[in-house]
């Protein structure tokens, strides 16, 4: 730093009075302390300018990338979804773009394959989300209970599948489902069961997703449980609540924010379902190439070169995700404010 030491001593204790709050609010710490400084020795116009320029400079890289890789693609997808490619003449003269309005949307919604894709994902959500939330919450509660041993080990061991890339998780489980390769199928065979693990795509995919994400979500819930003030739990115990009652009446309501967030990300993730069924598609004939809306969009774009239809399917998918996210956050917020009122 090039400044002489004089201003340092002069203003030594000053910033503390200026930025009195240790955690600066959204207003930021800059403004109040600057006005509170008692008679600055010299006006520093360059610094004031720097304070206006610095945030812009720091935000610019992200905003440029965000615009290029999120906002523009969204706009472009909407634009594309309104056009369709028509072969001119006999198909020799290339293609021309024709505005079709909502034509691609009605085509996508009118296609049974697309609707079935949404149905598969709906079925997947109905099976997966309760299982996922239930399992990860149960594991977090078990880990949080005073009885659990070796917590660090269990946390790491349960989280580890998340370190496995989705495609490799899908490959591992595909092998574990395949008769002849799988020790699981072999073991079930010797027990007399003749399982057709690849013939039921829904549980097959749900199991892979559960394996990948249960531990991850468990760590989130466990961290939230650990943040509950101990005196609340102590009070519940003194009031005569057993572990089960404490879990259901105290712990779970208190980590509602985490439950909402995990639910939100789980729904967004579920709608994007692609990798796992894409891997199973090679091994299981029941998983068609349009088994999820995402796979539908992919096959529309790359098998049929129908970009307008693919864009319309993507936009519909994003709109569904937005609607569900909105519903979940509203539901979560309404629940917590209701609870706040009840507690007041």
């Amino acid at each position, binding site marked *: 730093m090039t400044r002489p030491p004089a201003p340092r001593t002069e203003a030594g204790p000053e910033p503390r009075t200026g930025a009195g709050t240790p955690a600066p609010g959204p207003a930021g710490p800059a403004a109040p302390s600057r006005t509170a400084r008692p008679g600055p020795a010299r006006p520093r116009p360059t610094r004031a300018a720097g304070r206006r320029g*610095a945030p812009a400079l720091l935000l610019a890289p992200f905003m440029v990338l965000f615009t290029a890789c*999120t906002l523009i693609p969204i706009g472009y997808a909407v634009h594309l979804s309104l056009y369709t490619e028509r072969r001119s003449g006999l198909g020799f003269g290339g293609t021309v773009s024709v505005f079709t309005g909502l034509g691609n949307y009605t085509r996508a919604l009118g296609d049974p394959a697309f609707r079935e894709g949404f149905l598969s994902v709906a079925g997947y959500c109905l099976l997966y989300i309760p299982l996922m939330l239930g399992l990860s919450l149960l594991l977090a509660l078990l880990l949080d209970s005073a009885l659990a041993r070796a917590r660090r080990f269990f946390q790491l061991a349960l989280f580890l599948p998340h370190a496995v890339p*989705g495609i490799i998780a899908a490959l591992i489980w595909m092998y574990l489902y395949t008769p002849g390769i799988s020790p699981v199928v072999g073991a079930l065979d010797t027990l007399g069961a003749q399982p057709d693990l690849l013939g039921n795509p829904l549980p097959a995919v749900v199991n892979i997703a559960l394996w990948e994400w249960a531990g991850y979500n468990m760590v989130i819930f466990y961290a939230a449980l650990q943040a509950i003030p101990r005196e609340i739990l102590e009070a519940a115990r003194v*009031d005569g609540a057993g572990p089960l009652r404490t879990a259901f009446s105290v712990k779970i309501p208190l980590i509602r924010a985490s439950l909402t967030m995990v639910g939100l990300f789980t729904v967004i993730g579920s709608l994007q379902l692609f990798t796992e069924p894409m891997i199973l598609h090679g091994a299981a004939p029941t998983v068609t190439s349009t088994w999820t809306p995402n796979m539908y969009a992919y096959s529309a774009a790359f098998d049929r070169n129908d970009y307008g239809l693919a864009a319309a399917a993507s936009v519909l998918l994003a709109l569904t995700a937005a609607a569900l996210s909105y519903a979940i956050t509203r539901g979560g917020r309404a629940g917590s404010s209701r609870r706040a009122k009840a507690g007041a």
Partner: protein
Amino acid sequence: MSILAPGRRTRPDHAPAAPAPVRRQPWSLSRAAVNGALVLATAYTLLPLGWLLSAAAKNTGDLLGGRGLSPERWHLGDNLHALATTGDGIYFRWYLNSLLYAGIGAVLCAFVCVCAGYAFHVYAFRGKEQLFGLVLLGVLVPTTALALPMYLLASQLHIVNTFWAVFIPSLVNPFGVYLARVFCAGYIPSEVLEAARVDGAGELRIFWSIGLRMVMPGFVTVFLFQFTAIWNNFFLPLVMLSDNRLFPVSLGLYAWNTQTTAFPEYYPLVVTGSLLAVVPLVVAFVALQRHWKAGLTAGSVK
């Protein structure tokens, strides 16, 4: 939906009055039940990884025959050799590509996110919360719904099937900006910045020499999450790349896997390649436990 019974109070001030009914629990039994359940769940998460480990040591015949392992049937060395020689060692090229995409991409992404998160935390400017709201909306957009329009845009710009087509989109992570802002709020006291200003340091210098250093744990957290996300990404490279010399490991393994029905000798390659592709992430997660836990916790505070 609330399970809290109305009127029921769980305030500590009741504590002295209540006679604290101590329940006798069958402690040993429930302790065994709790830990038994955790062991079962751990078996569910670890056994598939154990299978991968053992399968990587089998040759095609043993793998397809489902036979167990014994020392004379140990083929891990052969598999690694096959992995290094098939397609002129293309697998390790994929591996290197993945390290480049994920390593450089995650460093840059974390830096960009920390810059933005720091700006959101430190400065007051017009429309700040609206802009932050836009970034948060970006978290909710399904990334795979973006991949297709991104491919079409990239093809207009003639960068499809290049390094950049996969690399540039991987620099963006709106959730990273959110995390960085939370970390800045937790790690950078405003007094320090104010003291630096009084000392006459410029804003960018303060960010570079003080802010960035103080929020290093946040930087590492965003880096770790982005590294995992890029390493695991499958859809974007699948859409963007057709030249297999540019493939990341995930796409390469997918390509090999589609060949297994015709060429069973690819099975051990896929399995052994998968095992090697899992290693860096498992090592990173075991070594950096503190960071991913901090990241998950910061994300769940909201």
